[in-house]
């Protein structure tokens, strides 16, 4: 049956998972991995995009609102952070991040308004506005880029309490701390009544309303928090991964990638955001390595990279057909098969069913 809470609302399993993950993130990884490549090309973008994917989870996986435009909110957060750092030099970096998130959240509420009237694919089209409007606004008004004409602005150094974090490993630690904190908050919210209200709206809005949930509040809250997470993720993405600010980096392709992360990872799960982000980010790298190792010299490199795209696309389709609930669900099934705890509960449920 269900685990009894060990600490606050966390079960024994939660605490164990948390300890293992923290040990991995803050002890094993920094001690074991020395090459900058791993930090700056894999771990940092993975964590940043996973954070944005959590934002996408809120609005799509939990609240069931088909929104597309996460990269727009990331751009808002990135440029907000740049401008805060630029114009208010005494502002501590964590606070800059917080305000960047809040500014993105304001955009989230604004672009979430269509969700009160339209749904499904139409909402997706309506939310694309955030993608195009925010990028357009940053390009149109020079103030946001501090009238820089080169098009690419270098991000400021991250300075926290007088110490600057410039090496890839240091930047990784900054990102890991922020992502850890925001993930814990996300888990708390999604397990608590915030997440339940969102899921109720997702599964049956009229019943949710009849239970006293205000659809307006629940939907706009999901959009605001989603944009907050995307905004912080965008700021981290620009400051630690890109190390520069350019609106092109936050184009529609990135929005789609975040959408795919959530779908592939598993809708309505927080770990799905991490799994999906890892999959979308690493899979092309794996395919590339495998392709080069097997077919090197035999086939033209351009054809290999084209085949990669085809395989990637095909896998996504196969995956969606056979496991629409995502990799997180596969993982859960595997776990329950290994430890065979869940089947007992389900057998009991089956027994309750009337025979006819």
């Amino acid at each position: 049956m269900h685990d009894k809470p060990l600490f606050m609302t966390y079960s024994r399993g939660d605490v164990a998972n948390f300890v293992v993950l923290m040990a991995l993130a803050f002890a094993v990884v920094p001690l074991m991995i020395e090459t900058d490549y791993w930090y700056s090309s894999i771990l940092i973008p993975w964590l940043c995009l996973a954070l944005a994917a959590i934002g996408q989870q809120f609005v799509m996986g939990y609240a069931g609102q088909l929104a597309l435009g996460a990269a727009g909110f990331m751009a808002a957060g990135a440029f907000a952070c740049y401008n805060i750092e630029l114009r208010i030099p005494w502002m501590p970096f964590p606070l800059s991040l917080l305000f960047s998130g809040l500014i993105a959240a304001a955009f989230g509420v604004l672009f979430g308004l269509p969700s009160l009237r339209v749904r499904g694919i139409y909402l997706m089209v309506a939310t694309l506005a955030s993608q195009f409007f925010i990028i357009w606004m940053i390009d149109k008004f020079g103030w946001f880029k501090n009238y820089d004409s080169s098009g690419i602005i270098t991000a400021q150094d991250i300075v926290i309490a007088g110490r600057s974090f410039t090496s890839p490993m240091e930047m990784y630690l900054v990102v890991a701390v922020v992502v850890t904190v925001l993930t814990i908050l996300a888990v708390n919210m999604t397990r608590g009544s915030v997440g339940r209200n969102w899921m109720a709206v997702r599964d049956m809005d009229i019943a949710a309303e009849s239970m006293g949930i205000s659809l307006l509040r629940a939907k706009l809250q999901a959009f605001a928090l989603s944009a907050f997470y995307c905004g912080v993720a965008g700021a981290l993405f620009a400051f630690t991964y890109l190390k520069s600010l350019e609106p092109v980096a936050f184009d529609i392709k990135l929005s789609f990638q975040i959408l795919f992360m959530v779908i592939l990872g598993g809708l309505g799960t927080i770990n799905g955001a991490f799994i999906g982000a890892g999959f979308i980010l690493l899979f092309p790298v794996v395919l590339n390595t495998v392709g080069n190792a097997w077919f090197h010299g035999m086939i033209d490199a351009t054809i290999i990279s084209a085949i990669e795209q085809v395989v990637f696309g095909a896998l996504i389709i196969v995956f969606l057909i056979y496991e629409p609930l995502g990799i997180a669900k596969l993982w859960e099934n595997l776990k329950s098969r290994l430890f065979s705890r869940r089947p007992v509960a389900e057998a009991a449920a089956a027994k309750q069913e009337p025979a006819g």
Partner: protein
Amino acid sequence: MTQARNFPIGGPILEVENISLSFGGVKAITDTSFKVLMHEIRAIIGPNGAGKSSLLNCINGIYKPQQGRISFKGEVLDRISPNIVARKGISRTFQNLALFKRMSVIDNILVGRRLHMGANFLQIAFQTPAATREERENRERCEEIVEFLEIESIRDTPVGKLPYGLQKKVELGRALATEADMLLLDEPMAGMNVEEKREMCRFILKVNDELGTTMVLIEHDMGVVMDISDNVVVLDYGKIIADGPPEAVRTNQDVIDAYLGVAHD
């Protein structure tokens, strides 16, 4: 129903006055008035398409009648939406099940506690003592409901995987969790076998007896209606053709005609 009740039937709690509802040219409800008394079990019966569900949807705020007014506990329900009606103390179940299919049984019932949970998202995110206490207390309430409905073994199963009869039970559980003053039950026993129906009746009577919850239920099974309801409203073609205690309604000629059909001359 002859022995003394914990909550004797009182004055009107809900007053429906002259409401009319039409969809385009189709009249669903025409100039209908009736009163529901405090703590009673009131059945609404009538042939298919008589406007029973539309009537519940009007009370619940899903439909807005073009004419007339509805007042609950002396307060006119004006410019309403389902979530405002819920806040006034009316909860409901739906004819075709409106559960949160991908959520577990316990989570479905917990959503029913929505109006008893006031912590905002920041308190929940940071797990403040008030938020954790609130969560724990409401979970305990829901566990009691799970126990009451005897569905402990499925508490963590996603509702979408459950058979129909159990889903109906969960939906009743969710409505009970609201602790509303009045429950609107839209065919709570549809599609159930005799045994399941008997069980459901027991739950309804028990809740009414122990908590004094006023119940308005739509039901097709005449046996059930005659057994558990204090008063019956009969609707036909969007109009009330009879309103009174079950015995009186059963012998009413208009009701017999509506159900059995009669040659109109």
